[in-house]
C-alpha cells in the first residue's frame, strides 16, 4: 500500500478535519497573547522588530508544541490505549510504515498549521504596530528575512519535537508521558532560543536536536513498538 494511502487512512481514523479546526482557536489565542505580550514587555516602546519577531515566533512554537502532543496522543497513544494497535498489527503491512504514516500526518498537519499561525501573527504585529505604534523603529526587509529564518528554524524544531514526542509515545504509551516529554522538549527549545541569537548556530543546534530525535525514535520504535500494552509494573 502506498504511503499516501496509509496517511489518508490515518487521517480518516482520527477525523483529521476536526483536529485541523483546532488550529483556529489556537491562532486566535496566539493573536491575543502576542498583542498582550507586546504591550506588557514593550511598554516603553523600546524593543525592536527583531526582538518582537523572536518573541512572537517562539510563543507560536510553544503553543504548537502542545498541539503536537495532542495530535500524537490522538494518532499514536490512543491506538495503544484502545488496543486498536492489535488490529493494525494483523494487517500485512510493515509496522514501521504504519508509524511512518502517523508521523507524516502529525508533521504535515502541525507544521502547516504552525506556519499559517506564524504568518497570521506576523501580519497582525505589522498591522497592530501601524495602528498602535508598539515597536521601536520601522519594519525593514531584514526584519522580514529574520521572521522567515525564525519560522523555518521553528519548523525544524517542531519536526524534531514530533519525532521526540512520538518516540516517547511509543515507549510510554500514555497521555501524561507524552505531555511530560513535550514539556521537557519545550524547556530545551527555550534554553536554546533564548541564549542564542546567531542564525547559523541556531540551525546547527536544532539540526542536532532533530538528529538526536531521529535516533531516539529509531531506538524507541525498535524496542517498544511491538509491545502491545503499557508497562504496568
Amino acid at each position, binding site marked *: 500500500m502506498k504511503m499516501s494511502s496509509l496517511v489518508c*487512512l490515518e487521517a480518516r481514523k482520527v477525523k483529521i478535519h476536526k483536529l485541523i479546526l483546532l488550529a483556529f482557536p489556537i491562532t486566535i489565542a496566539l493573536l491575543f497573547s502576542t498583542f498582550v505580550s507586546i504591550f506588557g514587555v514593550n511598554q516603553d516602546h523600546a524593543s525592536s522588530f527583531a526582538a518582537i519577531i523572536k518573541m512572537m515566533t517562539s510563543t507560536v512554537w510553544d503553543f504548537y508544541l502542545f498541539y503536537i502532543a495532542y495530535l500524537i496522543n490522538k494518532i499514536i497513544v490512543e491506538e495503544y490505549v484502545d488496543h486498536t494497535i492489535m488490529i493494525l498489527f494483523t*494487517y*500485512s503491512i510493515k509496522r514501521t510504515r504504519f508509524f511512518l504514516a502517523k508521523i507524516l500526518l502529525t508533521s504535515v498537519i502541525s507544521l502547516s498549521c504552525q506556519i499559517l499561525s506564524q504568518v497570521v501573527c506576523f501580519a497582525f504585529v505589522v498591522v497592530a504596530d501601524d495602528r498602535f505604534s508598539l515597536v521601536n523603529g520601522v519594519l525593514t526587509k531584514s526584519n522580514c528575512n529574520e521572521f522567515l529564518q525564525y519560522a523555518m528554524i521553528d519548523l525544524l524544531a517542531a519536526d524534531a519535537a514530533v519525532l521526540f514526542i512520538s518516540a516517547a509515545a511509543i515507549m510510554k504509551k500514555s497521555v501524561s508521558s507524552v505531555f511530560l516529554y513535550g514539556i521537557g522538549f519545550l524547556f530545551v527549545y527555550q534554553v536554546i532560543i533564548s541564549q542564542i541569537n546567531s542564525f547559523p548556530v541556531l540551525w546547527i543546534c536544532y539540526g542536532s536536536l532533530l538528529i538526536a530525535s531521529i535516533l531516539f525514535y529509531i531506538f524507541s520504535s525498535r524496542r517498544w513498538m511491538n509491545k502491545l500494552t503499557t508497562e504496568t509494573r
Partner: protein
Amino acid sequence: MSAYIIEGKNISKSFDSTVALKDLDIHVPRGSIYGLIGLNGAGKSTLMKILVGLEAMDSGSLCIFGRSGITSEGLESTGSIIEYPYFYERLTGLENLQLHASYMGFHDKNRIAEVLEQTGLAGSSDRKVMTYSLGMRQRLAIARAILTYPGLLILDEPTNALDPEGIKDMRTMFKDINRNYGTTIIISSHILSEMEHLADWIGIIDQHRIVQEKTMDEVKKNNRSHLTICIDDVKKSCVILEHIGIKDFAVQENNSIRIYQDTDPSIVAKELVSGGVSLYELFQDNRTLEDYFFEVLQNGGGI
C-alpha cells in the same frame, strides 16, 4: 500441498519468567473447523496471537499456508478476532469495516452490506461503535473477520457475550463459511457444548501444550454415552451380558464394565443378580465434550 493449513512444532513462548507455551505442537487440517479448548491461562490466546503475528514465539517452527513463519501473504488471507472486539470507538460500524477493507486492499462495497446483513447489524451500522453493546461489538468483529473471504479464520472466543440466538446464528454462519468458501476456522471457546456442535477437529491445550488433537468423530467414539456397572465378578458378568445379546461393552479397571449398546438398565440388573453377580452400582453416563475434556486433563492427555 500439505494437508495442514497450520503446522507448528515445539512452539515455546514465555513472558519474562511466566511460561505461556511450552513445546506445543499443532496441526490444523485444511478446510476444517478446529476447536481449541483449554482452561484459562493454558495458552490459547497466546497461541492465537502468535498465529496472527501479534506475538513472536521464542522457539519452535510454524508453517501457515505452506509458508514458514508469519508472512504478509498469510496475513492477507487471515481474518481474526483476538481477545476482545476492539474498534475505533468514534467511528461507526460501517466506517470501521470500510477502514478494514481499505487496509486489506479489498474494494467490494456490496460485501460490506452483505456481512452487516449476515451479522444482523445492517440497521445499526451508522451508529458509532462506542454506543454498541458487547454483543453488537462481537457481531461487528465477526463481520470484520469474514469480510474479505479469508482462507483462514482465527477466532478467540467469538461467541462471548452473544445471546443463545446469536450463538446459534454465528454457528450456522461459521459452518456456511467453512462449507461454501472452504475457509479453515480455528476457534476457541469456553462453551464446550457449542464447540461440540461446531468443530470437526478438537485440540485440547493443557499446561501450555496441546495434549490431544482428534477429530470430533474420534472424540465421540471415545466419549459415547454408556451404562456403567460395578460388580464383583467381571468374567461372569461378561458371559451374562453376551448371553442377553449385549456385545458392545468394555471392561474397565476397578471391576466395572461400560455398556455402550442401547439397553434397558433394569434388564441388565435383573440378569446379573439372577446370575449370581453382586451388583454394587449401576448408572447411566450421558457423556458430553465437557466430560471428555476433563477426563483428558485428568489423564494428562491420554484416553
